[in-house]
C-alpha cells in the first residue's frame, strides 16, 4: 500500500495523572475503513479529538500526507481536508437541515469580508450542502429544523455536515450510536460507498458493524493499542479475546 494519507505516531495525551491515550499509532489510507474499537473509556474519542486538532497531544506527532501537522489549529486542519463527526450530536439545533449543511460547506468558501453578498446566493455551498444531504438520505427533511429530527436522523445530519465540507479524511465518532437496524444498514452502505476517495477512521461500539465494514481494526484498552490488523487477525488475536471480546 502507498504512503498513508493521515497518520498518528506515538500519540499520547495526559489529563493530569490519567493517560487517556498512550503511545497510539494509526495510519489511514485512501479507500480504507480503519476501525478503532475498545471499551468505554479506552480513549477512542480522545484519539479523534487529538487527530482532528480539537485537543493538543502531550507528545507524539500527526502527519498529513507526510507533513507534520501536530500543532495546527483545528480550522486549519479542517481546511486541509480533515473532517470529523461527533459521538454526541453536535449540530445547529434551531437551524434547518439545509442551513446546517450549507454552513458546513461554506467553511470552504468563507469570504467573510463580502458583507453585502447574500449567503443563500453562494452556489458552491448550497450545491455541496444539497449533495451531502442527499448522500445521507435526508433530502425529504431539508427544510425541517434540526431540533425536530428523530435521533437517527440527527446522526445522519451529523455525517451530512461532515461530508458537506468535502474532507478527504473522515474521523467518525460512533456514527451508528442509537440508530435503528434499518438506519444502521443505510449508514453502513454509505460508509462502504465513501471509501472511494476517502480515508476513514471509524470509532464504533457495534461489533457486527465493525467486522462487516472495516478493512483494518485497531483495538484499544486503557488508552493503549493492544492489537491492530485485518478483521480476521483481530478476531483470532489472543490478547483481544482476553481483554476485550471476553466470552465471544
Amino acid at each position, binding site marked *: 500500500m502507498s504512503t498513508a494519507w493521515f497518520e498518528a505516531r506515538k500519540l499520547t495525551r495526559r489529563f493530569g495523572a490519567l493517560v487517556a491515550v498512550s503511545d497510539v499509532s494509526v495510519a489511514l489510507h485512501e479507500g480504507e475503513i480503519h476501525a478503532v474499537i475498545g471499551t468505554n473509556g479506552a480513549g477512542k474519542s480522545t484519539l479523534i479529538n487529538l487527530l*482532528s486538532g*480539537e485537543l493538543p497531544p502531550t507528545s507524539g506527532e500527526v502527519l498529513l500526507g507526510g507533513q507534520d501537522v501536530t500543532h495546527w*489549529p*483545528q*480550522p486549519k486542519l*479542517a*481546511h486541509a481536508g480533515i*473532517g*470529523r463527526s*461527533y459521538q454526541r450530536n*453536535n*449540530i*445547529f*439545533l*434551531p*437551524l434547518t437541515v439545509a*442551513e446546517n449543511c*450549507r*454552513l*458546513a460547506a*461554506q*467553511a*470552504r*468558501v*468563507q*469570504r*467573510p*469580508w*463580502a*458583507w*453585502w*453578498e*447574500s*449567503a*443563500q446566493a*453562494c452556489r458552491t*455551498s448550497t450545491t455541496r450542502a444539497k449533495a451531502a444531504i442527499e448522500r445521507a438520505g435526508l433530502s425529504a427533511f431539508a427544510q425541517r*429544523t434540526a431540533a425536530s429530527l428523530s435521533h437517527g436522523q440527527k446522526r445522519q445530519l451529523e455525517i451530512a*455536515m461532515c461530508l458537506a*465540507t468535502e474532507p478527504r479524511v473522515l474521523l467518525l465518532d460512533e456514527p451508528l450510536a442509537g440508530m435503528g437496524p434499518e438506519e444502521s444498514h443505510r449508514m453502513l452502505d454509505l460508509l462502504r460507498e465513501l471509501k472511494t476517495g476517502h480515508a476513514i477512521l471509524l470509532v464504533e461500539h457495534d461489533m457486527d458493524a465493525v467486522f462487516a465494514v472495516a478493512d483494518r481494526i485497531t483495538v484499544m484498552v486503557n488508552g493503549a493499542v493492544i492489537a491492530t490488523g485485518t478483521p480476521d487477525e483481530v478476531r483470532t488475536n489472543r490478547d483481544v479475546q482476553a481483554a476485550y471480546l471476553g466470552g465471544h
Partner: protein
Amino acid sequence: MTSSKSLSSLSVAAWVLAFALLAVFPLLPEPIGGKFHTELLAKVMIMAIFAASLQLLVGYTGLVSLGHAAFFGFGAYAVAMLAPMSEAGNGWLMLAAAVGGAGLLALVIGALVMRTQGIYFIMVTLAFGQLVYFVFHDTKIAGGSDGAYVYFKPALAIGGWQWIDLEQANSFYWFVLGALALTLGVLTLVLRSRFGHALIGIKHNEQRMRAAGYSTLLYKLASFVVAGMLAGLGGFLYAAQYGFVTPEILSWHYSGNALVMIILGGLGSLGGAVAGAFAFVLLSEWFSALTKHWQLLFGSFIIVAVALLPQGLAGLWARLPSSQRKEAA
C-alpha cells in the same frame, strides 16, 4: 416557501411604514410633534442605534458584553475632544474619529477578551468597560468627572456646501433617522451574508464551526469591532445632540441599559432592538414624570414584561400574522 416570502415582504412593508411615520413626525402639529417630542424621538433613535449594535454581539454572535458603553461613550468623547471652543468643528473628521476610534478600541479590547467565554466574558468586558470609564473620569484628558462640552454642533460640509445644518432640530432629527436607517441596513446585509450566517452558527455551536474550518476567534473579533463602530456612531450622535458628555455614558450602567433594551425588545431581532429602545426611553420618560421612585416602577415593569414575553416585543410581532413565521425565524 411562498408564505415565508410574503411574510418577509410584510415585514419590509412594516419597516417602510415605520420609517415613513418617523420621517414625517417633526412636521406634525404641536400636541404630537413639536420641538420637545422631536428631540425625544431623536434620543430614542440614537439609543436604537446603540441597542442594534449590541444586538449583533448578543443576539447574533452569542457574546454577552457588559462593556459596550465604552464604545458608545468613546464615540461621544471623540466629538467632545475634537470640538473647537469658538466655532463648529469638522463633522466628518469627528464622525471618522468616533466610528474609527471606537472600532480601534474594540479591536484592542476584543483581542484581549475574546478568549474568555460565558460568564468570564461578561466579567472581563465589564472590567474593560470600567477601565475606559475611569480613564475619562479620573484623568484630565476631557474634563474628568465634570464632563466636557461641545459648544457648536459638528458641521458636515461637502466641499464648502452646508447640505445639512445640525443646529436645526428637525435637520438633526432627520440626520439621526438616516443614521438609524443606515445602521439597520448595514446590519441586515451583514446578517444576510456568509459572515453573518457564520456568526449565527458560532452563537449556536462554536465547536462545530471550528471543526468545519472556521477560525471562530477572528469572526467573533470582527463582530465585536463592527458592533463597536456602530456604537461609536451612536456616541457621535449623542454628543452632537446634547453638546455635553460625561463619563456616565461610558459606565456599565449604560451598557446595562442597552442590554435591557435588547432583552425587552427580543434577542436576535433588529426590530426587537429598535422596539426595545423605544420602550425603554419612552417608558423611563413617562414613569419619571409620574413619580420620583420611577426606577422601582420601571424595574417592576421590566420583570413583568420579560416574564410574560420571553421572546420580547419582537415575539409579539412574530405571533401576529401567523404561526408559520416561527419557521422563517
